[in-house]
């Protein structure tokens, strides 16, 4: 009985998903920045990490991996931003995409992260968010709308990105 109910729920959910996706598709390519993010739940360093935990904060959502060179360069900067703006309601959420968790832990031992780290070794969240390169970061405002998408990480980008964070914090 429980199994049948579960299957029925699956079908319902699947149907809703289909309808939603069909309904949304004409707009899917027309919009970019301005889309609302949906929640995810992943394992973190201590317990689960849900994107909804940060509702009401400006979130810098970063997708990274241990083998990605520019990711290494971005960590000190993300530490700096988290320290500087956490009081103003700013949160860095860095999702690791290493297939092997050991590689991620070794990287974190050498590059400490003073911000929220989540692990998605199956690669479901980057697929959902449409990640096109490593690293990719999304700046999300307090109401859950995407303000900007940034591919790659170069030292020259730091100034511009910090400006965007400031305006997101000051704006709302």
């Amino acid at each position, binding site marked *: 009985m429980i199994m049948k109910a579960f299957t029925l729920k*699956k079908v319902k*959910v*699947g149907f*809703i*998903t*289909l309808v*939603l*996706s069909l309904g*949304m598709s004409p*707009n*899917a*390519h027309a*919009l*970019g*920045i301005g*889309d*609302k*993010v*949906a*929640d*995810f*739940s*992943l394992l973190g360093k201590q317990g*689960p990490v*849900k*994107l*909804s935990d940060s*509702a009401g904060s400006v979130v810098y959502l970063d997708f990274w991996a241990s083998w990605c*060179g*520019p990711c*290494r*360069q971005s960590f000190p900067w993300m530490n700096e931003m988290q320290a500087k703006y956490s009081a103003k309601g700013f949160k860095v959420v860095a999702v690791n995409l290493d297939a092997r968790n050991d590689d991620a832990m070794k990287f974190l031992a050498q590059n400490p992260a003073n911000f929220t780290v989540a692990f998605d070794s199956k690669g*479901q*969240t980057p*697929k*959902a*968010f*449409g990640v*096109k*390169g490593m690293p990719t970061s*999304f700046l999300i405002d307090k*109401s*859950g709308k*995407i303000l*900007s*998408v*940034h*591919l*790659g990480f*170069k*030292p*020259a*980008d730091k100034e511009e990105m910090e400006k965007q964070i400031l305006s997101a914090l000051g704006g709302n």
Partner: protein
Amino acid sequence: MESVPVKNTSKKSRVFGALLASAAMLLPSAKNALADAAPEQAVVSMKYLNYHDSQTGDTDLTAGMSKDRMTVNALSFMGMVPIAGKWSVAATFIEDSVTGASPAYHGWGFPEDTTSGASGDLRHAGDLNVTRYFSRGTLTLGTSYSQESDYKSLGCSLNGTLSTESRNTTFSFGTAFNSDTIDLNKEAVVHKQADPGHKTVFSSLLGVTQVMSQNDIMQMTVTLTHGYGHYSDPYKNYDLRPGHRNMVTFMTRWNHHFDGPNGTTRLSYRYYSDSFGIQSHTLDAEYVQPLPKGWEITPSLRYYSQSAADFYVPTGDNPRDPTPVTGLEHYSEDQRLSAFGAFSYGIKVRKELGRSWTADVKYEHSEQRYNWGINGKGDPGIPTFNMSAIQVGLSRKF
């Protein structure tokens, strides 16, 4: 922020959450173009080469023709600096010194004085490349030079790459120009003339690099070269070559990573054909095996086979005597234009020293024999040719 009610934390629920998330959330368009970025670190490296070749008269026909030939000592430097994540500049510089001698024709005719001919000579060469990194491609402008007492070469090139959005397919294209000046008035030149010889070469390249899987990547390249000018070897007797040379090269390479041992095979095949009538096949294979404590070992194998040039004149009954060339429009008795095959083996060992330094040592040995080729009958009067080289290098990242 829309949120999917998660009844439990089982994997299935998370998948549902993600599915709904992907439906509810629209894929943001990549307004910031995908970054094809400059390397993160600068590199400086140097490498020393010691090369030696010799020939062995190991058949009845070539008995007594064994001889040590040429020795080369070289030192080269390379520096690469990324700039602002959008540019990089790379330069190399090399100095090499050649001693010993090469045969004047076929496998004989060594000069009495070993400092004559194209030997006892110091050569300097260098190149400079500037690369601009764009959203999905790169553009590299290069310039090169090579100078020795009797030969000067200048070149410039433009190379570019263009990738698809997924970066799984990359197209490469390039074009290069080279202009050489050859001093034909040196002491050891066979047919001296006051005016220098000139050679002009144009090349172009087209290639595709394709990611085949998480562990496979392949590349195919076609290169076309058109050159005209002085092709004859000034120091070789009996050497009069056509005044132009067109070449086409087709190369395919495949790298495969093995998850188990964490090693990588690197295979390549090259087919070459030119208007001199030369066709060749080259097969290269190497296996890169990382080892604990920052060591890495790479054994390698190479097989090469070439046909003879249309105008190659083989040895006669006595391989120590040159063959008459009367009545021939073009001719050469340079063994490098004969048909032969060659096998090489090599081994390279690398070690990481701390966070920034790397040291490497490589040994390679190659043997050419007239009957090891698959491109036609070789010249049995050419003795077996051996070459070996040791490279020692040091590199630092910044």
